[in-house]
């Protein structure tokens, strides 16, 4: 499978925060979720990829082309959705569109009109009269109206109610149907990823902590519960993270059979993405 985005050893520091040697790649035809808690470095990474902030080292390739040398061509092929307030609120949607659209060589006015209709948005309406959900849909309409092959989104669902979130996920699923496309979105709402992500990349404290297919992650990690008294220190090491109380322990691990051989009496349950993410973060501390 082709790699639609490749990031290689990206470094960037900001005062007391830095991105350290960020490297990852995203295959095409996949929806990739970029997860991490607030402040982990998701937005900084996205901004570096888009060239909005300068990187100190490392290189970025999209569609096999180097961002340094093919910036304009690449930007023509990506659609971008930021989390909020990236429009002049006093303008109407149609006026704002007239500012953005001419930048793209493949802008398709019919696609734009189609999306505005589908999202029930009136182009003449002023942006500051829109709810957060409508603004996100508008941003999506703009991002999807120039035949973009990769959609990059920074926390598109934060602050949105479950109905709109599920509508967004549906729109993304539709977008992917044609094939040859990709979606890369950062979020800390892991329940959305449980539903549509194919690939997960997790960042914590400026470093990439994991990069894995979602189903493989869900297949390999389990929640393990058992008797605290049976927990010896060698077994603790088999866990990614573990919580103990007087009544038992709960932990996340991907070495279930090992644990089972030491402590046969355990309850095993499937973990969610959130469980696995939190375990990685806690385990890292």
């Amino acid at each position, binding site marked *: 499978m082709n790699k639609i985005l490749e990031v290689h050893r990206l470094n960037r520091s900001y005062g007391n925060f830095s991105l350290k040697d960020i490297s990852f790649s995203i295959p095409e035809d996949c929806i990739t979720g970029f997860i991490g808690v607030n402040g982990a470095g998701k937005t900084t990474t996205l901004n570096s990829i888009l060239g909005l902030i300068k990187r100190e080292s490392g290189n970025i390739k999209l569609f096999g082309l180097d961002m340094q040398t093919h910036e304009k061509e690449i930007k023509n092929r990506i659609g971008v959705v930021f989390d909020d307030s*990236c429009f002049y609120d006093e303008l109407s949607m149609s006026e704002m569109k007239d500012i*953005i659209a001419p930048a793209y060589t493949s802008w398709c006015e019919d696609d734009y009109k189609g999306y505005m209709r589908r999202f029930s948005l009136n182009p003449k309406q002023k942006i500051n009269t829109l709810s957060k959900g409508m603004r996100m849909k508008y941003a999506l309409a703009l991002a999807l109206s120039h035949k973009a092959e990769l959609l990059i989104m920074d926390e598109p669902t934060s602050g949105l109610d479950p109905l709109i979130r599920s509508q967004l996920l549906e729109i993304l699923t539709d977008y992917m149907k044609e094939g040859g496309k990709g979606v890369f979105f950062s979020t800390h709402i892991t329940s959305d990823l449980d539903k549509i992500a194919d690939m997960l990349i997790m960042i914590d404290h400026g470093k990439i902590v994991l990069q894995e297919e979602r189903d493989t992650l869900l297949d390999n990690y389990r929640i393990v519960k058992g008797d605290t008294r049976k927990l010896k220190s060698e077994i603790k090491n088999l866990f990614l993270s573990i919580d103990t109380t007087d009544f038992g322990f709960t932990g996340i691990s991907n070495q279930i059979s090992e644990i089972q051989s030491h402590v046969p009496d355990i309850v095993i349950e499937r973990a969610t993405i959130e469980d696995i993410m939190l375990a990685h973060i806690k385990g890292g501390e």
Partner: protein
Amino acid sequence: MLLHLIKKDFLIAKKYLLIMLLISVFIPIFVIWYVPELGAEIGFVLSVIFTVFMILQQVSIKEYQYPKVSALLCSAPYPRKFLVLSKYGFCIGIYFLCSLIYLIEITLFPMYGKLSINLVLGMFLILSVFIGVFLPIQFKYGYAKTKFIFMIVIMTSPILFPQLIKLDKGLSLNIVNTISPVFLYVIVALISISILMISALISIKIFEDKDLA
């Protein structure tokens, strides 16, 4: 593409633009009525400086209010240098509008003054110096730190310019006599354009390295 970005600035200053253009209509008239000894030319000069700076301030306020728009524009295929050049284009565009208004005024009331080449080129030079110095500073430090400059220019121009014109009238007589007029016009135009180009290059360099998010 560049035109669209210039259009954007006009769009965001839309409401203010109308008011300012009206003001630029009245400034020359005001000058002629109350201080006719200075000549309507002063009115023209003042109206250009006033209008350009006040509208520029308005656009800068909006951009300061919505900083992420630049991020959105730069994640689109708009090259950063076009975002810089569009500011210069915008200022020059306003200059043309003011000139047009002045032209209409003196066509309707020819006794108030004339739009000589001297005035047009001289004003262009003055404008080039102003925005040539100011825009790179604003690109470097942002609106918040530089908004006082707007205040200073707008407040002091009614006082400074009459003085400057008096000086200039004294100076220009000597220089104009020694060089042929056409040559002078070309030199002044070239100087203005060079100032703008150098300023634009500096601004572009500043903006290329700026973090937009």
